[in-house]
C-alpha cells in the first residue's frame, strides 16, 4: 500500500479531499431529511432493542424477580457465575448447538437442490415455487398442531404408516432420539422455503449467456450445475449459511410447543432455559445473566463468520489485483 501511495502521490489524496468536501457541502435540510426519514426506525430500534438490552444488562447484576416491582438486591457477578456453573445451562446450550448441527446442513443443501430443480422446470414454475415456500408462512403453533397429530402414538399418521409396512414407529414424543427426529423433520418441512426463495432469486440473477456458452462447449446439465450454478451461488450460500446458523441457534417455539423441552429436559434449547428460569421460576436477574452469556456467544459466532468472509473477499480481491501491484513493486 505504501508503495502505491509513493508512486502516485497526486491522485488519491485529491479524490479523498473532494469526497470530504462533498459531504460537508451537503445542505443542512438534506441531513435533516435523512434523520427525519430514519427516525421512525431509530426510535423503534432504541425503544425495543437498545433499551431492553441495557435494562437486561443492568438487571443481570441484581436479584431481580418478575413477581415484584423494583430491581431487588445487588449481587454483582454472582448471577453470571451461577449460570456458568450450571450444568443444565450447558446441556441446554448443547441442545441448541445440536439442533443447529442437525438442521443447518440439511436446510442449506435441500434448499439449494430444490431451487436448482425448480429453476430447470419448464412448466408450472410458479406452482413449485409457491408449494415450496408456502409452509414457511404458516405460524409455528399451527405447524406444531398438525405435526403433533401426525406423530401421536397409536393414532397418528406417521406411526400408522410405520405399522402399515410392518415396522415399529419410533416414539416421537416420549423419547429423546424420537423427539429430535420429530423436531428436525418438522423444521425442515416448515422453514426450508425461506432459503429456497433466496436461492431462487440468486439463480435468476445468473445471466443465461453463461449457460448458453457452457452448452456450446458441450457441458451436460449436471456439469452446468456442478461447475456454474453452485460456484456462482457461492455468495448466496455464505449468506444463507450464516442466516440459518443464527436462526437455528435461536430455536425455541417449535421445541417448546412440540415437546416442552422434554422428555426430561433432554431437548430443551437454551432459550427455553432462559424462559424457564427468568419467567417460570421468576428469577428475572438470573435469566438476564443467562441471556447476556448467550448474546455474547451469538455475537461471537457472527463476528467470526464476518471475519472469515471478510478475509476471503480481501484475499479474492488481492488475487484479482495481483498483476498490477507486482508491476508497481518491480518499478520501486
Amino acid at each position, binding site marked *: 500500500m505504501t508503495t502505491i501511495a509513493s508512486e502516485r502521490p497526486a491522485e488519491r489524496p485529491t479524490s479523498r479531499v473532494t469526497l470530504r468536501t462533498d459531504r460537508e457541502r451537503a445542505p443542512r435540510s438534506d441531513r435533516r431529511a435523512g434523520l427525519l426519514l430514519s427516525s421512525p426506525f431509530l426510535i423503534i430500534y432504541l425503544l425495543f432493542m437498545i433499551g431492553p438490552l441495557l435494562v437486561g444488562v443492568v438487571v443481570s447484576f441484581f436479584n431481580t*424477580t418478575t413477581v415484584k*416491582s423494583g430491581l431487588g438486591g445487588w*449481587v454483582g457477578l454472582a448471577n453470571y457465575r451461577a449460570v456458568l456453573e450450571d450444568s443444565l445451562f450447558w446441556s441446554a446450550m448443547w441442545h441448541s448447538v445440536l439442533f443447529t448441527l442437525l438442521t443447518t446442513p440439511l436446510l442449506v443443501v435441500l434448499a439449494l437442490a430444490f431451487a436448482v430443480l425448480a429453476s430447470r422446470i419448464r412448466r408450472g414454475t410458479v406452482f413449485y415455487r409457491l408449494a415450496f415456500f408456502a409452509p414457511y408462512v404458516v405460524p409455528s403453533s399451527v405447524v406444531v398442531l398438525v405435526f403433533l397429530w401426525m406423530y401421536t402414538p397409536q393414532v397418528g399418521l406417521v406411526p400408522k404408516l410405520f405399522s402399515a409396512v410392518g415396522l415399529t414407529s419410533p416414539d416421537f414424543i416420549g423419547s429423546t432420539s424420537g423427539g429430535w427426529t420429530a423436531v428436525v423433520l418438522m423444521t425442515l418441512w416448515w422453514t426450508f422455503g425461506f432459503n429456497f426463495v433466496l436461492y431462487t432469486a440468486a439463480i435468476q440473477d445468473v445471466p443465461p449467456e453463461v449457460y448458453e456458452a457452457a452448452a456450446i462447449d458441450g457441458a451436460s446439465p449436471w456439469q452446468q450445475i456442478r461447475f456454474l450454478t453452485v460456484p456462482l451461488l457461492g455468495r448466496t450460500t455464505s449468506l444463507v449459511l450464516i442466516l440459518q446458523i443464527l436462526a437455528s441457534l435461536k430455536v425455541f417455539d417449535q421445541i417448546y410447543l412440540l415437546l416442552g423441552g422434554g422428555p*426430561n*429436559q433432554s431437548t430443551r434449547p437454551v432459550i427455553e432455559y432462559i424462559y424457564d428460569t427468568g*419467567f417460570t*421460576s*421468576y428469577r*428475572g436477574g438470573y435469566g438476564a445473566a443467562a441471556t447476556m452469556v448467550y448474546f455474547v456467544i451469538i455475537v461471537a459466532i457472527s463476528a467470526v463468520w464476518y471475519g472469515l468472509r471478510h478475509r476471503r473477499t480481501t484475499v479474492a480481491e488481492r488475487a484479482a489485483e495481483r498483476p498490477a501491484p507486482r508491476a508497481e513493486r518491480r518499478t520501486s
Partner: protein
Amino acid sequence: MSGALGRRRFLALGGGLALSGGLAACSSPLATGLAGTQPDTADVIFWNLFTGGDGANMVLMENAFRKAHPGLSVEATILGWGNPYYTKLALATASGTPPDVGIAHLSRLPLLAAAGLLEPVQDAGVGELGITADKFTPAAWKKATVDGTVYAVPLDTHPFVLFYNTDLARKAGLLDAAGDGLKPMKDGAAFTDALRAMKDAGAQYGAVMSTTADPSTCWRYFSMIYSGIAGPVVTDAGTKVDVDDDAARSTFAFMQSLTAGGLMPRSLTGSGVNALFSTGKAGFLFDGEWQIPTYRGVKDFHFNVVPFPALLGPKPVAYADSHSLVIPRSGKRSSARTAHAALFIKSLLNNSATWAHGGHVPAWLSTQRSKAFLDQTPQRNYVQAAFNAVYDPVAWYTGAGSDFQTTVGSTVIEVIAGRLSPKSGVSRLRSDLKRYTTARPPVTIG
C-alpha cells in the same frame, strides 16, 4: 402550500377523531388492553387450568353459580396446566391485571404468598360467609396458611393412591371378608407379597406406574415412600438440603426391589400403563386419583381405589396436593367485586360434590360428609388419605409441575429403571436439591 396545510389539517382531524373514538370505547377490551387494565367483562373473572373431565365438572359448577345468582356473570378462562398457568397468573397479578378468583395448587402457594400476589382470603370476607378453619380437612387448611395468614380456600385433596383390578385381586386372595376392600397390609414386605400374588393370579405385572418421561409421578411415588420414614427433603423454606441418606437409600432400594424382581416394569409410558392396567395385565396401578375417569368408562373392567398402606414407616402416608381458590391481589378491585368473588368461592365449595366426580376428595367437610359424595365409589374409599396428606416441601421452587419436580423426578426415573444404584441415586438427589437450595430465591419465604 395550501395543499400541505390541508393535508395537515386532515391528519389532525383524523387523529382527533381516532383519539375521541378510543376514549369513548374505554370499556372495550381493545382500549383496556392498550391501557393495561383488566376489562370488567363480567362480575367474576375466574382463571383455572382444568381441561378434560375436570374442566367439564368445573363448567357445571360455574353454571350452578350462575343459576343461584342470576344477576351475576362469570367469565372463566382456561389456561395451560402447570408452569404456563402459574407464570401467567403471577405476571398478570404483578402487573396489576389479575383475575378476581384463580385456582392454585396448595404446593404452589408459598411463593405466591411470599411475593405478595395474594389477598388474604379473610380480607375478602369469606369468614362472614361461613368459610372457616373448622369446616375443612385440617391438612389442607394448614397448607393454605402461610405464616399464620390464610391465603387460599382449599377445594379438594388429590392424593397419590393405589388402584387395583378387583377380579385379579379376588383371584389372588387379596380381598377382605366383605369383598369390597383389600386385606390390610402392614408393611413393605406384605405389599411386595401382594404384588407377587397378583402376578401369580395371572397378571403380567404385579403393578404398573407411569415412569418414562413422567418425573412428576415418579417424584410423588418417591415422596410418599420417603415421607414414611423421614421429614421433608429440604427445610428452612427451601434453603437447606435435609435428606436422610439412609431413608433415601432404603426408599430407592425398595423401588428397585419391585422392578428388579420383575413385579413392575423398569420403564413404561402413560399410554403403556393404560393399556396394561385396563386389560387386566397388571394387578395394581400407582397413580393420582384423577385417573379414575380414565378407567371408569372401560367396558367389563372392574377396579377399586384405596390409600397406599404404610410401606417403609409405621403409618400410611399419602403424597397429595390440593386445588384451592385464591384471590390475586389487586389495588383496583372494588369491594363489590371482592364480595362477588367470595360468593363465587362459597358456591364452588357448596357444589364440590360435582368436583368429586373427577376423583378428588372435597376439602369442604359438609360436602365430604354429604350423601352426594358418600354415594360415589371408589372416591369414598380413600377419604382418609386427605387426612394423612403430605405435600411438597415448602420452598419457592417446589409445587405441581415445577422444574423442581422435573429435575428430582428424573433422578427417581433413573433409579426405577435400574440405571442408578440406590447409593448413587442418593448423591444425585443431593446434587439435584443443591441446585435449588443454593440458587438465589426470587423472594424470601418465611
